């Protein structure tokens, strides 16, 4: 998938490891880890994921990275590692039984090999390298640079990914950078509105319907990004591919779609054209970046 965000992919990969997802290893789940925080927003840091195992009295913070690490961010995490009880006292981590034995590890993960990163090496932070094989398929997750404080966790690495396994992509697809999925979600929502007889809507209503109760948790900055991408998309397609289907009057959008199979198929064909063209653009962009 072009233009997708490594960050969201990594989030899905590690969330999947802590749940029972068919055709994906449940390595963290086996040690009793459950997800405690997804994209947390706490005063000390903004961890992507926090997993806690009651059995091990241990939390694992995962930071999903593309290539670069930041000293400021690492220092924040080191403070948390030095005094992990902060997470318990703040009510962020709730699954610990023996609070006096509670320990915390931080790991960075990426699709790129950042095992030479000076900051990670200097601070002894484990790096979980997600290695892809042929045709982009993930084949192994290796632990590099340093060990975790829990041997049970160390022994689980490397994680070999079976040939017929694929990571989940749709477990947590909520990132404005995940453009293709976001655009597909918007187009699907237009049909959903039409089918349910809701022929007029605002951008806010559209986004709330896509994200349901997650919308309330998404930060203002991300919300703005979603609104902008959504509005730009609808403005563009109302003039082009979806001209007969959507229009805008006084900031209110209208969807006009007959409730029959033929109309839905015609609409589907137009949606496929939009996705194809988006893929092409994202591919060009990626090539330019390379």
């Amino acid at each position: 998938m072009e233009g997708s965000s490594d960050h969201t992919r990594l989030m899905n990969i590690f969330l999947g490891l802590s749940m029972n997802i068919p055709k994906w290893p449940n390595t963290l789940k086996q040690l009793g880890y459950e997800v405690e925080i997804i994209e947390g927003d706490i005063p000390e840091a903004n961890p992507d994921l926090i997993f806690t195992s009651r059995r091990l009295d241990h939390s694992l913070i995962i930071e999903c990275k593309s290539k670069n690490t930041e000293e400021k961010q690492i220092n924040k995490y080191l403070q948390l590692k030095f005094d992990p009880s902060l997470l318990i006292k703040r009510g962020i981590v709730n699954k610990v039984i023996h609070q006096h034995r509670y320990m915390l590890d931080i790991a960075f993960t990426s699709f790129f090999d950042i095992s030479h990163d000076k900051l990670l090496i200097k601070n002894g932070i484990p790096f979980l390298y997600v290695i892809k094989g042929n045709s982009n398929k993930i084949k192994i997750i290796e632990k590099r640079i340093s060990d975790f404080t829990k041997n049970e966790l160390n022994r689980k690495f490397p994680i070999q990914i079976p040939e017929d396994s694929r990571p989940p992509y749709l477990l947590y697809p909520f990132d404005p950078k995940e453009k293709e999925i976001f655009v597909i979600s918007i187009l699907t929502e237009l049909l959903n509105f039409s089918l349910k007889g809701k022929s007029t809507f605002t951008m806010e209503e559209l986004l709330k319907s896509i994200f349901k109760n997650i919308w309330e948790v998404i930060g203002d900055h991300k919300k703005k990004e979603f609104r902008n991408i959504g509005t730009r998309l609808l403005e563009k397609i109302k003039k082009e591919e979806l001209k007969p289907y959507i229009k805008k009057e006084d900031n209110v959008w209208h969807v006009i779609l007959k409730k029959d199979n033929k109309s839905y198929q015609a609409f589907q064909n137009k949606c496929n054209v939009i996705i194809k063209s988006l893929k092409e653009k994202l591919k060009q962009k990626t090539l330019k970046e390379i």
Partner: protein
Amino acid sequence: MKVKNRKELFEHLENIMARTYEKIKEEGKLEYEQNLLKSFIIESNEPNLNSLKQSQSKEFKVDIFPTEDKTLHVLNISLKEKKKAVFYVDSFNPRFWIFHTTSKSILVNTIIKKLVGVIGGKLDHPWLYTNFLDTIRKESTQVRGTGIQYKYGDVFPDENQEVEEFSMRIWGSMAQNIIEQLRRSSQLKHTLTLSSIGIKQVYNNDFVIEDITYWGRFLARGTSIQAHLEVVENIQKKYQSILSQIEKERITYKKREHSIKIEGRPLLITFKKKIEDLNKFLEVVVSSKIPFRLWGIKTFIEKDFALVVGIDLHNGDKFSMEVTPVWIRFYLPEGACGNTVIRLVTNLQKYYDADTKLEGIENGRII
């Protein structure tokens, strides 16, 4: 016939069951205008029967008459060609309505399919997949017949299949042995999908003979309406329990103070027959057309790995899938109807691979 309550209705239906049974037993056929009792289970996401008035279209018209019993209604449904059928609708269980009728088979089959076919009508058939029918067959007092129907060619455009269509009706109790023998054939093993069963069920000293199709139609004759009602209710309860298992796995995102919590997990659909062309396969499955009735947009991550986000046209519920040539991870969101995935799996068994299975992580194999 006008009925005031269940007692009157069931007396009336039992008379018809007994008369038709005797006639077939003595003469091997029914008289002109004499019809068997037929019951249909309809899965509903709409609690109010009056919603049928709203979903009526140019193609059919619905008149609803109440009885003394608030969960029993008489429905006159007419097609645009003025052909009319009378249904006695039991909505005691709001999720599964039972339509009883003694009108003509062809007419009522058409009407039921039109009712269920309304886009966004929130009604669906129960989809009695192969191992479900097999269990019912094994639990019955006597197995009378087994229907097998595989119709790949009706749905998938590829003509290079070894077997495009396979239909067979086996009368008698040796059906399972015959099916097991056929299963040894590499050409036929993907085609052995049960589409109907014939059973005899004894109730006290009475009995009912039922022909049950995979889309929830019961043709009944015999001496006891209670035996018939028991067969229908038993299937409805078993089906509802499967539906609940599936709906427990729905993905729910819960808001917490600092974050989001994910509950539920995707379901897994597996095939033994590998999908050769994933793009063509998905074009059929999410084309909006019967039998799947799913609309979706797909995108490929790898040549053999695709994502689909879509909508079930029966009820407007959203769904998403991650698809490979041998398995599908199916995500059912919060509040979505589990019948979407049972319809998909049952019809994949009938039109693609009889060995299609559904698994949940917590409950193991579901279908």
